[in-house]
């Protein structure tokens, strides 16, 4: 196949500069003004880190952070289990009754408007508590169920594409040599898709920690997540404290993305080297 030609035109340079300026200037401004002394976010009056101090002193905000992070970890972990199983079903089991509706159910949450998903889940929880007396109160538990449901779809997409590009001959060889399907999955398939599962976990975690709309519907009086605190504060206007929070989030995400990318590149390299060694030895 013809390699993709590299283009060096003024048009291409312009598109890249303008496009990335659009994406990054607002973020850079957020960061710069988090160090502004003035309460008026957009008027520069001197360098200060006092807003970071105020951010950490805000107990409502800090409680929100703790709750969001713990729900994020638990949702991502469950979403990875469900998403990986679903991806496995879609790529390896293939034909079964209800396959089409299965595939549709695993795709639909990604494109469903959040207000609809949120309302639907809330009505389900209300109906369940009327019928079975559970859940007695909405809170972290109902948020967890809601987040698992919509993040599992994203995990499925990521793991599925990895399963598709995987060389199936190794799995088939193991099966022919008498390994049970369970053994094949844990010894062959799982290690090969581990990077995709890790990426899926991170995406699920990010989506869960970031979600406002679905969470607002299914949450109860005692569970206020970070986006809910931020939203009610932002509704009242801009505040340098939010800028400080934004800066910290951007910092953490950038570092995590870089580490994740680096680890995945290293794992891929190691895997290729191992395969090469195995080929030579055989």
């Amino acid at each position: 196949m013809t390699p993709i030609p590299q283009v060096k035109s003024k048009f291409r340079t312009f598109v890249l500069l303008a496009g990335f300026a659009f994406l990054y200037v607002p973020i850079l401004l957020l960061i710069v003004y988090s160090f502004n002394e003035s309460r008026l976010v957009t008027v520069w009056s001197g360098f200060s880190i006092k807003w970071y101090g105020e951010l950490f002193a805000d107990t409502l905000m800090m409680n929100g952070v703790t709750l969001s992070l713990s729900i994020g970890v638990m949702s991502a972990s469950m979403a990875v289990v469900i998403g990986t199983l679903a991806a496995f079903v879609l790529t390896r089991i293939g034909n079964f009754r209800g396959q089409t509706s299965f595939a549709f159910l695993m795709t639909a949450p990604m494109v469903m408007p959040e207000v609809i998903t949120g309302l639907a889940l809330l009505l389900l929880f209300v109906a369940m508590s009327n019928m079975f007396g559970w859940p007695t109160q909405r809170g972290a538990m109902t948020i967890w169920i809601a987040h698992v449901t919509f993040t599992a779809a994203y995990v499925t997409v990521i793991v599925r594409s990895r399963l598709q590009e995987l060389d199936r001959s190794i799995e088939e060889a193991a099966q022919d040599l008498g390994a049970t399907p369970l053994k094949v999955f844990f010894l062959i398939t799982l290690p090969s898709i581990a990077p995709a599962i890790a990426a899926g976990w991170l995406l699920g975690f990010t989506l869960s920690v970031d979600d406002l709309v679905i969470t607002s519907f299914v949450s109860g009086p005692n569970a206020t997540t970070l986006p809910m605190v931020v939203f009610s504060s932002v509704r009242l206007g801009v505040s340098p404290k939010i800028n400080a929070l934004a800066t910290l989030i951007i910092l953490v995400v950038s570092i995590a993305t870089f580490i994740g990318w680096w680890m995945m590149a290293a794992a891929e390299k190691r895997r290729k080297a191992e395969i090469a060694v195995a080929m030579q030895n055989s």
Partner: protein
Amino acid sequence: MRGTDNMNLDTLRQLPLMGWLPRGRHLVIAIPYVWMLLFFLIPFAIILKISFAEVQIAIPPYTDLVSYAEEKLNVVFNLGNYLYLLDDEMYLDSYLQSIQVATISTLLCLLIGYPMAWAIVHSSPAMRIALLMLVVLPSWTSFLIRVYAWIGILKNNGLINNFLMWLGVIDEPLTLLHTNAAVYIGIVYAYLPFMILPIYTALMRMDYSLVEAASDLGARPYRTFLSITLPLTKSGIIAGSMLVFIPAVGEFVIPELLGGPDSLLIGRVLWQEFFNNRDWPVASAVAVVMLIILMVPIIWFYRYQRREMQENGS
């Protein structure tokens, strides 16, 4: 190949202690299936049900459709909520406004996103990865905070107005925040990565010998683009457009924070019916109608995903 596999499995199953094999397979299917049925499909049935109920002051704040009294089984389908949506022009306006805003935002995303995807694909391989990561990175940070960033830029004493006044172009600040323009900017900014990624994938997968052949035969670049590149990346354009259009129709955060009181997009209306008016049946009816409108784009997106999967799998 498949036939021999099944035969092997059948013989295996007859061995002692191997009876779990089919059950294992069913279990693998059942766990994700049951979860999604219970927490995704059934909730929609409940929305549909409650959209036919009447609002009442109680817990929960709606009536039952089915009741049994005096040896009569009463099933009451109340169409009032739907008639109410038809009756009040505010709802019709909201639906139309949502579709309009979503369509224009999708086109803007396409106009900005396609050239960007193209420019990234035509970079050196190492540069390509780095640029792609830069596209994705903002969407890993908080959505809410990216929308918030624009408040500081657009408000009356915000950065754009301060800058223009400092230049002396304007004397009075322009009203930029709480306008429809601000909503467009917000949607395009927040959803641009979702447009770029599928187009990037389509451009990477394209057969470039066709482009080469076209230019060898004397076609100008724009002609090559229109008759080769554009049709070959149609799947990416459709996927990207659906990923922007569908959530944009139901968007709540962006019109709430950046839009004015008159930018009543349908997601915001649903939110207000539910949280402010506590009218769950009307909120459900609003959701059902929105879902009917979005059914075509959702199925379109699903078909594309499926085709994509089959092409990859073969």
